[in-house]
């Protein structure tokens, strides 16, 4: 890991216009490590942000730096690995040749490039299939080769655009495990994905984008706690719902309770304070709580609240 004190990826008041269209609006974002999910609806600006981070595009205003080096500068890209969402390979090449060519492009000598390509293909689980031509690869295999080419020069920052698209469930789990291990080994991952359930399994830290802005950044819990306008809904299954409802309505953070046959659905502000108070209540009243199920603290629900829609991306 680098000892450089500069943030690994830093967006400073970055705006990007495409003609009259404002793609990104005054983005400020800092990544130092771990895995960060990048979520948002189509057209929210995720791809633009990724292109700026990987030096594919230049900001109209503001500055994007990687360890203090302008992201547009080729030197910055020694620290960045990029796995694009689309695959446009030379189909006549084998997977191994492609990754090897990408390693040579990074500046590795021939023997080192061969070794790096082999070890990276091994890492993504493609070692045994790397000598087949790319045109014969399945979508999942192409994703793995794309990931291999992004990892081949051992970047500190790995930017992954829809890395799980087209991969079967078993493969997804393997990839998620790999991402976690890479993060544990000191790499910083920025993962853009519409697969919110998978993203939630991977990381709790997300940046939510909406209309060219960062709507929120932090852990899902932190973001949820800040959303005072949308009280957290929790379904609680108990034997005596009416008695529980009476106790809940006496709590300061509770704004509403719906009584159902099997329990209650309570809406509360400040979730952390509520859960602490609820724990105390259960101990004091000896209520027999069978199940406690937060209904809208998932990434889907949070995104839906932030974007004013259903949460679908």
């Amino acid at each position: 890991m680098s000892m450089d004190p500069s943030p690994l990826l830093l967006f400073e008041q970055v705006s990007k216009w495409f003609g009259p269209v404002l793609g990104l609006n005054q983005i400020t974002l800092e990544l130092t490590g771990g895995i960060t999910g990048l979520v948002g609806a189509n057209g929210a600006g995720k791809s633009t942000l990724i292109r700026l981070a990987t030096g594919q595009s230049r900001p109209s205003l503001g500055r994007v730096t990687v360890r203090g080096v302008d992201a547009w500068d080729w030197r910055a890209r020694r620290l960045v690995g990029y796995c694009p969402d689309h695959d446009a390979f030379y189909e006549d090449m084998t997977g191994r040749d492609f990754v090897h060519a990408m390693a040579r492009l990074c500046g590795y000598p021939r023997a080192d490039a061969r070794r790096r390509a082999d070890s990276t293909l091994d890492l993504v689980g493609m070692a045994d299939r790397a000598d087949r031509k790319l045109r014969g690869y399945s979508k999942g295999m192409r994703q793995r080769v794309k990931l291999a080419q992004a990892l081949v020069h051992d970047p500190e920052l790995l930017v992954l655009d829809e890395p799980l698209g087209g991969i079967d469930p078993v493969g997804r789990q393997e990839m998620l495990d790999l991402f976690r291990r890479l993060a544990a080994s000191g790499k910083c991952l920025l993962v853009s994905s519409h697969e919110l359930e998978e993203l939630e399994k991977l990381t709790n830290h997300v940046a939510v984008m909406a209309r060219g802005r960062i709507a929120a950044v932090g852990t899902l819990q932190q973001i949820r706690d800040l959303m005072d306008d949308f009280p957290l809904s929790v379904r609680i299954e108990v034997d005596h719902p009416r008695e529980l409802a009476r106790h809940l309505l006496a709590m300061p953070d509770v704004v509403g309770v719906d009584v159902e046959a099997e329990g209650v659905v309570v809406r509360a502000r400040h979730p952390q304070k509520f859960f602490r108070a609820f724990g105390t209540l259960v101990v004091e009243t000896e209520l027999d709580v069978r199940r406690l199920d937060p209904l809208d603290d998932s990434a889907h629900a949070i995104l839906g609240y932030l974007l004013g829609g259903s949460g679908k991306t």
Partner: protein
Amino acid sequence: MPPASDALLRYRPWRGTLRSPIFGALAMGRVSLRLMVRRRLFWGLYGLALMVFFFFFYGQYLVVWIQQQTAGQTVFFGGMPVKAADLTKFLDRLALNGSGHTFANYIWFQGYIAMIVLALAGAVLVGNDFHHGSLPYYLSKPIARRHYVLGKCLGIAMFINLLTTVPGVVLYIQAGLLYDWKTYYADHLRELAGIFGYGATLTVALSLLLVATAVGVRRTVPLVMVWTGIFVLCRMLGGFLVDGQNLDPRWRLIDFWNDLYLVGLGCLGVDRATLRPPAQPEVWEAALVVGGVCIACVLYLRRRIHAVEIVS
């Protein structure tokens, strides 16, 4: 996928120093060359190029052999007695005698084949990077935009030189061995320099022109049409204006292929009086046009590639 415990075992942090992006451009050149060689569509043209080479190679040998062995003899050709030396008269136009014209003619013919292959391969080499979106793979690596252009030009340059300069040098070596090598190599150094000069002129001009047109039009058919316009229509028009309408020979400067040929002849030190057709512009004028086209291509590429941003 290997078990979680050892998956990162072989994938270790890189402790060394990565080389300059120039080496990245070289790698890109090699990949481009491999792409051109692998296309079976072009193998027929490569075969034709090989035939042209063998024609010149064995033609030189045949001419020398006839001159030395049977020049004074009479042979029967279609029942008619013919001097053996007269049988090779049809080869005189190609000047298969190890002179500057030999190499100029050879590079002229091979250059045509190279030009046709490049017109067909331009979309594969450069256009598809834009059209199909391969560019992010290149530009996400530690190379600058200029290294991308350099890499593509290097690939094209390797290809042109494999078809023109390298076999040209082989013909030069062969000519020395056929004649008196002790004096030939010393007396014909200008020709050797001319082979390299003509090859370099073709290399620089065609690679820049190809990358520039491929960046502009991207698809194979429009690219072939543009190149046909430059190398066929302009050539015909130049010939019509100078030879047909008896206008100033400078009108032939619109024939870019002829300009390259004139520069090549200038490098080879060929006497201007022996040129065909005789009404030709000055070599320096042709060199100015070639230089101007190259500069225009560089400026265009600088505008289009240097500032390229992936936006879709």
